[in-house]
């Protein structure tokens, strides 16, 4: 690439790159752009096909597919309320159990933990995400479910005055909403904790110092300077955990009991959208199969919505807070780790 004097013939090849040498660059740019377009097209394509396959279900059952309570394979009736309800219950209870523990863990690891222990302990918590779903299912079925059944019965009997949560002691089964939710809570804990940790790390040290300098105890400092600042981000992280919980299949199908009904209490069996697909797809024909696609569609839309709201929440939090490193990017790092 040396300089050259322009000759009368206008030969400035030294300064100007030949079209040929620019080709790889353009090819690369083109190639990568088309890749990106491909991804977009793929998602749209799948969405449309999924709608197509579920079409006959919605034309046959209409809105009762989602709200009607009668999922009967033998009579070819597919009203999926038990599925939707089961999905929501297990995810909701999983959040209830998992998010507080995850956030408390994140707080410990960022604010209280001795520096030397921080990386190893964080790594261990992250390792929870490495265990495959089917292994959690296996462990849940043979260890956790039988182990906890007596305690669940005791709980239901002791608190029988609480509607739905208590009172089912005598009919509690080893597989039920609760045990599925508990294992689900364990599964979402690492991602909620990882995202919370990233969010907590962005709290400006100067605000923490200000709190301490006013004579706050460590916990008061967390309450005053750390939590309010991180609230949006943590909520976003919890919602991402929710998204994960909604879509979880294998552990649920092994632990929820796969009963196509809305269970009468926390310790009875139920079903979920993902579980029904996994279970019944193999032998499904015709309208049954279409119903399963429809279940998949509902699940897809549900998780999509939750995800979109979650990310909006995190973005809102970080924009308003003048966060240094983009919280979104930090989230990407956290997610890819789990």
């Amino acid at each position, binding site marked *: 690439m040396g300089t050259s004097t322009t000759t009368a013939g206008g030969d400035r090849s030294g300064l100007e790159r030949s079209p040929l040498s620019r080709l790889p660059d353009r090819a690369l740019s083109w190639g990568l752009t088309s890749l990106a377009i491909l991804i977009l097209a793929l998602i749209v394509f799948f969405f449309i096909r999924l709608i197509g396959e579920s079409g006959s279900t919605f034309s046959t059952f209409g809105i009762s597919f989602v709200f009607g309570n009668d999922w009967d394979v033998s009579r070819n009736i597919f009203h999926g309320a038990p599925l939707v309800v089961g999905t929501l219950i297990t995810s909701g209870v999983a959040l209830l159990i998992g998010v507080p523990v995850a956030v408390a863990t994140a707080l410990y690891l960022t604010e209280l933990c001795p520096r030397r222990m921080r990386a190893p302990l964080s790594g261990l918590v992250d390792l929870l995400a490495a265990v495959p779903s089917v292994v959690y299912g296996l462990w849940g079925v043979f260890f956790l479910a039988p182990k906890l059944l007596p305690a669940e019965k005791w709980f239901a009997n002791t608190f029988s005055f609480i509607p739905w949560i208590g009172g089912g002691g005598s009919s509690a089964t080893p597989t039920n909403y609760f045990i599925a939710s508990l294992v689900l809570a364990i599964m979402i804990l690492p991602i909620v904790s990882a995202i919370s940790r990233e969010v907590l790390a962005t709290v400006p040290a100067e605000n923490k110092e200000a709190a301490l300098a*006013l004579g*706050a105890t460590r916990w008061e400092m967390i309450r005053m300077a750390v939590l309010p600042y991180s609230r949006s981000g943590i909520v976003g992280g919890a919602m991402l955990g929710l998204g994960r919980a909604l879509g979880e299949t294998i552990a649920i199908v092994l632990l929820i009991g796969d009963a196509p009904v809305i269970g009468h209490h926390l310790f009875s069996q139920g079903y979920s959208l993902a579980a029904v697909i996994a279970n019944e797809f193999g032998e499904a024909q015709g309208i049954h199969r279409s119903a399963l696609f429809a279940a998949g569609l509902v699940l897809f839309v549900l998780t999509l919505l939750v995800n979109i709201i979650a990310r909006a929440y995190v973005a809102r939090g970080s924009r308003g807070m003048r966060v240094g490193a983009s919280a979104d990017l930090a989230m990407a790092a956290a997610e890819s780790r789990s």
Partner: protein
Amino acid sequence: MIPSETRSKEPTMSTARGPVPDQEEAAPDLSAMGERRAGHGITVNGLNAYYGAQHAVKNVDIDFPANEVTAIIGPSGSGKSTVVRCINRMHEEIPGARAEGSIKLDELDVYDPGVDLTAVRRMIGMVFQKPNPFPTMSIFDNVAAGLRLTGTKSDNLRERVHRSLRAVGLWGEVKNRLNAPGIGLSGGQQQRLCIARTVAVEPEVILMDEPCSALDPIATLKVEELIDELKARYTIVIVTHNMQQAARVANSTVFMLDGEVVEHAPTNDIFTNPKDERTERYVTGKFG
């Protein structure tokens, strides 16, 4: 003069309620805090502070007289901020940092093992280099933050918050928007807000670590005016890079170099007739 940070967003832009002109600007009014009371001094004896293996403060003895402003000047790395952070025991918050020696507030040694950290920090307040109001809190809540820790309740709380805002001369400017976010104020106002927050819990001593270095000249002057008023009630220690500032506000000045106290004298003497050659070289600008 230290180049200042540009003024942060004017509150008019952030509260989104239309322009609110600054109210009448009041001078600081310490009498709002109640009857005069004498302050208490600090005596530092044999202070050694470390960051890990680095010996940052070496055997420092300083007397900070009550109801006076004492400035600490010196080049970067001289240990002046570290000394000040040892006084309210913030130094040990840094991982690996420790300090030994005696720092007495009156007869009380803050390094006494039986002493409660939070109580010490209540008695010895701190204003930081960069104004740091709590971003999620309103102006009112910022000032109330320390009071709420000790369970001060509504009427009493409100009265004390208003009092503190009056005391620092911010009342006129914010009285109609106490619920606006604290970070919506200008840099100088934010810093005075932080001072109000510190003053609200009624400490004996106020430590200031380069409080004006992030402010523009006008805001700086207002803070300095405030410091002049504050010394009537509090003992003030101010770390500063700016020698003219020390000359303007401080009764006496300490010159530190490489972790040691070189000279401590009435401000006038330090600048016009320094005893130590190193002091003379610093104040005449030959280094630092």
